[in-house]
């Protein structure tokens, strides 16, 4: 299985980006950008159909030498962990473009479409890269269009948000770069040749201290991206000030790069350290879940509320990942998709309000269900999906995560459950204040319900919520082989740790025994012994 599927997937958007630059008519720009984004969507759906669900390794692999001096190659492939994130990305880009063309973005549409398509290249490339250098390149490439999107089409304190976003992310990624370089250097010291290929780097033997530092280098970069408490502070600003499509891409896909990074790189490369760091990450995840929910609850700004809900939801994903068992990891990956679909939809809905009223303040709304019934209905489904109502997608992910966490360390599961309750609370409360009650503001009386285009954007997402809620099997079955392959590595590491521990214990016991024997010999025998 080869072909050019993945290369096409990654670079058709780039071609599209430059194709769009040549156009000048606004309608043509939006239309062609949308069509360019449909091509990768179709390719990714083909991948889903042609994907071999029984295989754990990379499929559709392509590999060409790039910088041979450094053992760097253009090596891409897709497995059960990345497949669905790829589809999520292509889908959300298409929907964002479809939505943004409907009046959300009026300023400089050509540049906007350019950024969006370049962003798609960066995201897909980072998801598909098997070479660490290539991954890093795409990881950084996706940063640039995102900060320009916030900077140019954002609102409010957009400049501040842009800088915060860039500095936080770059700080993490540069430390990761050092870690990548060090790891490759360590591999060369053992194998004699330099390589940045992920499979080559799995077997590198490191001292415990080295592995700790390297894991930290990766983990900080990914934790910033997730974002985990306490490095989450860039997120509310970036999300709130970004244009709707920017928020959708940020929340929908970019945050997943952090969690994906843990699953793809940090944990399989350094499984021992990941196991040992589990309590730290689970604690931070739980703090994130509850902190995010509590802060979301008191937000007067609807978009900020959704932004903080992301902190909370991503905490669940991290919890599932660090449960380090099948249920937890399956649930985490499932929840990444859920969050992309649900929060993406929430940001779209919030954006739809904003184009009508130009405010995110919850107090400015009220009683919208009477004026915009269809909007209220969509919002209801999305909100229920987000809080994990059984039958919708959110439930499957949260359930699996809680199950996995419970199997691993029940105490964290209890806190996480509290987070779910809080999540339901702030979401429903916000819904109540926006949708129900009397119409308090006269301007709201004349708001129009959803347009055809807006419905077209929402329908695929809502359909996905229902489908993923009722039929998780086709997704889970494709993830499982890859997840299990990862867990085999983790269990091997656990066994090594146990062995080392047992050895250590045995040594200590032996030491004790010797000491006791010596003591016994030196003491006079006691009568009552």
């Amino acid at each position, binding site marked *: 299985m080869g072909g050019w599927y993945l290369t096409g997937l990654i670079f058709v958007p780039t071609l599209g980006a430059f194709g769009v630059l040549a156009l000048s008519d606004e309608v043509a720009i939006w239309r062609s950008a949308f069509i360019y984004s449909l091509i990768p969507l179709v390719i990714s759906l083909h991948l889903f159909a042609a994907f071999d669900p029984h295989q754990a390794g990379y499929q559709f692999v392509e590999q060409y030498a*790039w*910088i*041979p*001096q*450094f053992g760097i190659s253009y090596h891409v492939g897709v497995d059960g962990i990345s497949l669905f994130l790829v589809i999520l990305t292509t889908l959300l880009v298409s929907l964002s473009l479809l939505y943004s063309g409907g009046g959300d973005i009026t300023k*400089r549409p050509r*540049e906007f479409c350019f950024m969006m398509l370049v962003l798609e290249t960066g995201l897909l490339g980072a998801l598909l890269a098997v070479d660490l*250098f290539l991954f*890093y*390149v795409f990881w*950084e*490439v996706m*940063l*640039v269009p995102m*900060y*320009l999107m916030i*900077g*140019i089409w*954002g609102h409010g304190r*957009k*400049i501040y948000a*842009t*800088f915060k976003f*860039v*500095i936080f992310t*770059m*700080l993490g990624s*540069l*430390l990761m*770069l*050092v870690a990548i*370089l*060090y790891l*490759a*250097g360590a591999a060369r010291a053992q194998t004699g040749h330099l390589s940045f290929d992920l499979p080559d780097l799995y077997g590198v033997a490191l001292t415990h201290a080295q592995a700790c530092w390297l894991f930290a280098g990766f983990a900080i970069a990914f934790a910033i991206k997730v974002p985990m408490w306490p490095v989450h502070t860039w997120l509310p600003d970036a999300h709130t000030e970004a244009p709707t499509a920017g928020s959708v891409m940020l929340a929908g896909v970019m945050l997943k790069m952090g969690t994906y990074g843990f699953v793809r790189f940090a944990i399989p490369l350094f499984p021992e350290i990941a196991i040992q760091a589990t309590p730290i990450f689970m604690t931070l995840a739980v703090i994130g879940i509850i902190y995010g929910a509590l802060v979301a609850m008191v937000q007067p700004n609807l978009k900020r509320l959704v932004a903080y809900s992301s902190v909370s939801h991503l905490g669940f994903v991290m919890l599932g990942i660090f449960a380090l068992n099948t249920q937890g990891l399956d649930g985490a990956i499932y929840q990444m998709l859920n969050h992309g679909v649900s929060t993406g939809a929430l940001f779209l809905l919030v954006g739809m309000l904003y184009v009508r009223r130009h405010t995110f303040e919850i107090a400015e709304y009220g009683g919208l269900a009477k004026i915009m019934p269809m909007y209220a209905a969509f919002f209801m489904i999305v909100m229920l999906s987000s809080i994990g109502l059984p039958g919708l997608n959110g439930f499957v992910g949260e359930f699996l995560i809680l199950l996995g966490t419970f199997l691993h360390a029940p105490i964290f599961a209890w806190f996480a459950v509290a987070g779910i309750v809080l999540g339901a609370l702030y979401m429903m409360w916000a819904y109540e204040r926006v949708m129900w009650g009397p119409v308090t503001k006269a301007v709201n009386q004349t708001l129009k319900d959803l347009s055809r285009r807006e419905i077209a954007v929402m329908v695929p997402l809502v359909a996905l919520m229902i489908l993923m809620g009722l039929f998780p099997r086709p997704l889970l079955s494709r993830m499982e082989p890859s997840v299990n392959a990862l867990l085999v590595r983790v269990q091997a590491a656990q066994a090594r740790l146990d062995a080392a521990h047992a050895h250590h214990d045995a040594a200590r016991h032996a030491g004790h025994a010797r000491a006791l024997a010596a003591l016994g010999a030196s003491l006079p025998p006691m009568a009552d012994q």
Partner: protein
Amino acid sequence: MNQFTLSAVHFAWLPILPLIAMALGAMTVMLVGPQVDDDDSAGLGVIALLTLLIAFVLTLFTFSQNHLAFGGALVADDYAAFFDLLIIIATAVIVAMSLDYVSDEGLAGAEYYALILFSALGMMLMAAADDLIIIFLGLETMSLAIYALAGFMRRDPKSNEGAIKYFILGAFSTGFLLYGIALVYGATGTIKLEPIRAALAAGNASNPLLLLGLGLMLIGFGFKVAAVPFHMWTPDAYQGAPTPVTAFMAVGVKIAAFAGFMRVFMVSLGPVSAEWSGVLWVIAAITMTIGNLTALVQDNIKRMLAYSAIANAGYLMLGMAAAPARAAGGAMLYYLLGYAFTNLGAFAVVIALARRSETRDRISDFRGLARTHPGLAAAMALFMLSLAGVPPLAGFVGKFYLFSAALGAGLVWLVVIAALNSAISVYYYTRVIVEMYAREGGEVTIEPLGARPALLISIVVAVAGTILIGLYPQPYMSSAAAAYASAVRRPAIAATAALR
């Protein structure tokens, strides 16, 4: 034996041919100069460009020669050829971006282009020198011309201030360098680079005379590459000088100074690297940190780029601190290549923004550029991203190569410091992009680039270089590594010389 000597003598002229061409070209410019009006000096620039073209072609012949000339004063190796080509290309781009600038500002064209060529001649001499005195000669030829160029806008107080500062401090620092050379001569009994290396390799390391000489030379070179704490002249000289000259200082002077610095320290003084690599570790760390932190608060783009040049000197010295590692030299050469194209481009955009008698060199002057001149803004954004180290541009791959070499030498903490510094630098590079793209207001209208084709070409060349060197680095990495290797692989050449 006899035939060999003949051929050696015959080829002994080859290394100096590009230099002769440069000198002749500069003199031609001076001779033709008086017949030309100052408002119409572009023709002189074309003569300068032709000279550079000839020198370029002649330099190509010096590749893979690897022998000494003039009794060991000059060496024709790939290292010299690599640097010579880089200096010639950079000078050509600078001449191209000067064509309209010089005539628009009414500067004296004959002197300007002649000084540029003489200065480039000195740079090339530094790269090809195999003798401390010749290095000093090259450095002075380069510097004297640059001092004059920095103060070229006679009526501008800023230009005067910068030039005076540069001159006084520069003269002082060359004094240090010369004193250092004298002491090293005293310690080793020779001024030739290879015999110095041989003497040091044979033991003789902790001679106090040598260490003192080494320290003084370090100060001399540190001044020229603008390393902290010898960097004080940089921002004023950069800001005051005519913008193309600033570009020349940031690119040409830095490349040439590193060419000499690296050859003297990493090759000749390589056997005693334990004595100086620790000092360079510290200088590299403070240079990049102070450069980046100070750049954060600059409002003037030329000052910002000056501090950015200081920070880049810090990154480069990361490679020197890793000295015994062979990979570090190649990494530095590759880094300089990417740095040259990126910086030339950035300065070309600054020139494009300037209007007759009105210098637009505040960062806020870039506000709104993306709306009025999207192409120019995109080019500037590209250069800033490359400087900030965003892949897949030249600046990133350079850092990647450099960091990787330094990690290979075990300088983990210095690399971490460099990585944190790169993250800091993202702020001020991004600031330019934010001004151009995100801030509201500010209508920049500039003279269309179509009317200034030479400037347009230099920007296009810089864009192409920045992308190509980053995206397809393999050939450039190979030639950089080969060039450095040729400088280290000296014993073979020395043997030939002895034979002769």
